[in-house]
Structures are given as structure tokens and as C-alpha cells.
């Protein structure tokens, strides 16, 4: 138990202006989001985090095949297409994670026997892909007007071999990290909706990453709010 006391020291707080592109400590990369950019889907969004870019399209609530219909709520389907190659098992597993997150927030009971389809296309992958997919899916659902009980966001943390915590890692940082943890948090109380991790980490490190992700999600939700305000404000 004594070892855990040492772990919090390597996590350095932001001390002001950063020297390089992403200095030590935690920061999120440059964010950009564009909504309603596709003409056919009911809702669409393109979410960019640094160089990672994901395009999401949402159809729904729409007609559902009888084999897939659920009598008391909407059937949510997520399709994730990689940039190159055929979709494989990794995509299927990510689809499932995203679907579970969306099902937790979408008010499916308001649209029984319908289908809500979220189609995601990876436009470029430069680290924290799953988090970017989650954010794109959320913005696309908002753009489509699907009723939700909360917004959600995805945050990725990477723990390197020294135990340093890096938020929103790049591809290189993810490869060299000892553990990569992705969390989906909801906007109402920053509660955890989904978590998926890869690698080795201790109990304390998990809680620290989760706390850091909750702090980062503040920024993401603030970004959502600003972008929606810009779109819907009358001035």
C-alpha cells in the first residue's frame, strides 16, 4: 500500500504556457467539430481531435426489420468502417462498446419498434480513435435530434512506463505506453458509462486515470456546449 503514495508525484499539473506542441502534463489536442455536413443522413458530424478525424452519420428513428425489432424500445445499430481494409474483429468490438454507450443514454423507449443507425467512418487515425468515435457519435445524435438523457464524451488516457499520465495520446504515445485506458463519461454527473483498457496498471492508477478523464471531460462538454450555442443562438 505504501507504493501507491509515490504514484501521484509524476503527474504534473499544467503550469502555464507550454513549450512544445504538447508539453508535459495533460492537455487535450486541438478540437474541431462540424455538424450537418451530409445531406442524406438525418444527422451527421465530423469530429477532429488533433489529426484523428471521424465522420459520423445517424439515421433514425427509422423503419426496422421485423427480425431486429424490439417491442418496447428502439434498436440501436452502430457500424464502424476502418479507413483501409475490411472491417475486422477490432471494429466489431469497438462497435459494441459504442453501442453500449449509446444505449445507455438514448431514450429508446420513446421510439419503440424503430431503428437508430449510427454509421462511423474513420477518416484518419492518429491516436485516441475510440474516444473520437464516441464524440462524433454524440454530436451526430444531437444533430439528428435523437432524444437522449445526457450527452456523452470519450477520453483516452495513456500510462507510460514511468507512470506518467497522458491525456488524448497520439499514435506514437499509445504505442509506447504501458497501458491505454478509454472512458466514456456522461455529461450530467460525469459518471462512467463505458471503460475499456489495454495493458498493465494498478488499482490506484486506474482511479487516477478516471479522475483525470473526468477533469478532461469538462473541457469536452464545454466544447459541445459552445458549438451548439454557436449554432442555435439567435445572435
Amino acid at each position, binding site marked *: 500500500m505504501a507504493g501507491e503514495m509515490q504514484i501521484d508525484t509524476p503527474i*504534473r499539473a499544467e503550469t502555464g504556457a507550454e513549450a512544445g506542441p504538447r508539453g508535459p502534463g495533460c492537455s487535450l489536442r486541438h478540437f474541431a467539430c462540424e455538424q450537418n455536413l451530409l445531406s442524406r443522413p438525418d444527422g451527421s458530424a465530423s469530429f477532429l481531435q488533433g489529426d484523428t478525424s471521424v465522420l459520423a452519420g445517424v439515421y433514425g428513428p427509422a423503419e426496422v426489420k421485423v427480425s431486429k425489432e424490439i417491442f418496447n424500445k428502439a434498436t440501436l445499430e452502430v457500424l464502424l468502417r476502418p479507413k483501409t481494409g475490411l472491417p475486422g474483429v477490432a471494429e466489431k468490438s469497438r462497435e459494441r462498446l459504442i453501442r453500449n454507450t449509446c444505449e445507455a443514454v438514448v431514450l429508446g423507449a420513446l421510439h419503440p419498434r424503430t431503428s437508430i443507425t449510427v454509421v462511423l467512418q474513420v477518416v484518419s487515425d492518429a491516436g485516441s480513435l475510440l474516444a473520437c468515435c464516441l464524440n462524433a457519435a454524440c454530436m451526430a445524435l444531437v444533430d439528428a435530434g435523437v432524444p437522449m438523457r445526457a450527452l456523452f464524451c470519450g477520453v483516452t488516457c495513456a500510462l507510460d512506463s514511468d507512470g506518467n499520465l497522458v491525456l488524448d495520446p497520439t499514435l506514437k504515445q499509445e504505442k509506447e505506453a504501458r497501458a491505454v485506458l478509454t472512458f466514456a463519461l456522461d455529461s450530467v454527473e460525469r459518471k462512467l458509462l463505458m471503460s475499456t483498457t489495454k495493458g498493465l496498471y494498478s488499482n490506484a492508477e486506474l482511479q487516477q486515470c478516471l479522475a483525470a478523464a473526468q477533469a478532461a471531460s469538462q473541457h469536452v462538454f464545454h466544447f459541445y456546449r459552445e458549438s451548439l450555442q454557436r449554432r442555435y443562438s439567435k445572435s
Partner: protein
Amino acid sequence: MKETPLSNCERRFLLRAIEEKKRLDGRQTYDYRNIKISFGTDYGCCIVELGKTRVLGQVSCELVSPKLNRATEGILFFNLELSQMAAPAFEPGRQSDLLVKLNRLLERCLRNSKCIDTESLCVVAGEKYTPEERDPVPLSIHHMPICVSFAFFQQGTYLLVDPNEREERVMDGLLVIAMNKHREICTIQSSGGIMLLKDQVLRCSKIAGVKVAEITELIQKALENDQKVRKEGGKFGFAESIANQRITAFKMEKAPVDTSDVGEKAEEIIAEAEPPSEVSVSNPVLWTPGTAQIGEGIENSWGDLEDSEKEDEDEGGSDEAIILDNVKMDTGVDISNIGSQDAPIVLSDSEEEEMIILEPDKSPKKIRTQTIGVKQEKAASKKPMKKRKKKRAVN
């Protein structure tokens, strides 16, 4: 999802408008929609928008050994995917017709016209390198074939260049001409079963020549811009192509996150968390190599089968042929505890035999014959412990 059918009045409206040389979006007959080209951060990635139609293209490569009959050439693959994002009708598995047509068009246009130099794709044998070790060399392209589409209406009377989605739904047929800027036709594809006259096709090719020149110039300019920005170290990639003035777009610069208190927060949570409840795991008991048992299972809920059937036993040896068997899950019959003697163990597959339960030194009462196909044996212990054994796959 099913495609929404086009209503009759919409169809009539479109056709009537075309007869009067009017298009829904205000274009002239020979006008192209706006083309927008944007490149991504990694090489070979590009998004092209033609009006509202949007296509993402990516070039990727890997080192493989060349084909035997073409030892000095590289191999080119083309693949086109219609995502469901593009139209609700593009369900995976449902769009074969259009997909095949477009794939063929791509192949013929780019492969058969030999616009990409496949011999330049060949790497010297014995020299393997990764993309990190060597700078990527741009593909050597001989010429750039550009496709131009023409839609025909009223059996070829009316022609529209670059039809949009509504116009395509009411057209009779489509003619695609792929041409490069040297006015060489690379591919012609006509679909829809329209019968065109020679001079119509010639007229289309003339129009195509003009359009291709414009589009090629646009592509060259976009490529030069991108190269310039990359060389000068400016920002490039899709992030830059999001127009800042649009109300539906929003950007945020790097945001520092204050994680100074995560250490304390985490400690609090761990301190307040309850330790997980004790889970008692019983040690595994090894019956024989290949057969082990963890836990004891639950009490038999079928009732006492002991006194149901009795018969005289036919006992040969006094001792233990300890018999294990494959018990089907649905029968749910208990097997008593089998002693751990060193006797040979016989795994029996037989289901339908009548068998005799051997009882080493118990009273005859406890012995019975069953026809279910289960062999049981009571151990030397007084109270037989009942276990459930699951059918094991025997490798």
C-alpha cells in the same frame, strides 16, 4: 433501409423542367457542381466533394512479391465501398448492382488505361524497408483520367452534364466518359440501355474534353497548394479545411487539463471503497490425469433415487472398477463420490447397457440396476456424496 420511392409528381416536375432547359439547382445544361478537394495529414488521403456527393480516397501500400508472370511489375488493387452513411439504401449486402458497376468503371479507367506506372512500383529484390526508414516516393502517374457523366432523358433528346441524385432517378440512361487532358478517351461506359447516335456520343466527348481540362487544372492547383503548405511547415490536414465561418463548425485550440488533484481524488476513492467480499474458492481435486473437480455442486433436487429400484447384484469382484461415464446434462443424474483408489478408470461411452452397480462392501440394498446408462458406485464412505458431473469433451 428501403429507398423512399420517388413520387409521380416529382418525376413529372423534373422531366418537365428539363424539357424547358431548367435544372432544380439553377445550373445550366453543361454546368458542373462545385468541386472541393481536401487532403489529410498522411500521404495518400484525400476527400473530394462534388456538390453534396462526398468521397474519401486512401492509397496504401505494402511489400509483396510480384506475380510470377510479371516479375518486374507491382500489383494494383482498387476497392470501392458504399457506406450506409451515403444513402440509407446502401445496406451492407444490399448494394451489389451499383457497387459492381462502379468498381468496374474504376478498374477500367485506372488499370486498363495504364495511367499508373506499375513498373515503378517494383522494388529491388533483397531490399526491404519500412515507411519510417525511407521517405515515401510519389507514385509515378503517366496521365490523369477524369470521368464525366452525362444523363439522357426522353430517349436521348435531352442531355444533362453531371446529374445530381434527383436527376439520376428520372433519367433514361447514363454515359460516363473518362478522358485525360490530352483528349485521349480512357473509358466509355453506357448504362441504362439507351440507344445513342454517333454524333451524340461525339458531342459528349467534346464537352468532356472541356470539362476535363478544367478539372485537371483544379486538381493540379490543389496538389500544389498542399505541397507548398507541407514544405513550409504550415498546418495541413482535414482540420484546416473546416470552414471557420460556418455556423455549424466550431474549433477549439489545445486545452490544458488540470490534473493536479487526481492523485488525492484517487486516494480518496480507494480509501472509501469497500474491499471486495471474500470469495471462497475451493481447491481443485485431481481424480486422474485429465479429470479434476472444483467445488461440490449443489444439492440434488431430484429427490432420493436410492430406494426406487432394487435388484440383486451380480457381483464378481469385490473391488473397484471405478467407472466414470459421460452423463448428459439433461438427464441430471447424480453420480456418487468415487473413491480415489488406484484402480483403473474406465470411461464408458455406452448409453443403453444394463449395468450392475458394484458395491465393494455395502449391503445389497444399496445396489441396483439401472437402464439409463449411468454407472454408479458407492464409495466406501457411509454417506455417499452426490455430485453432478458434466459431459466432458474427450480430446
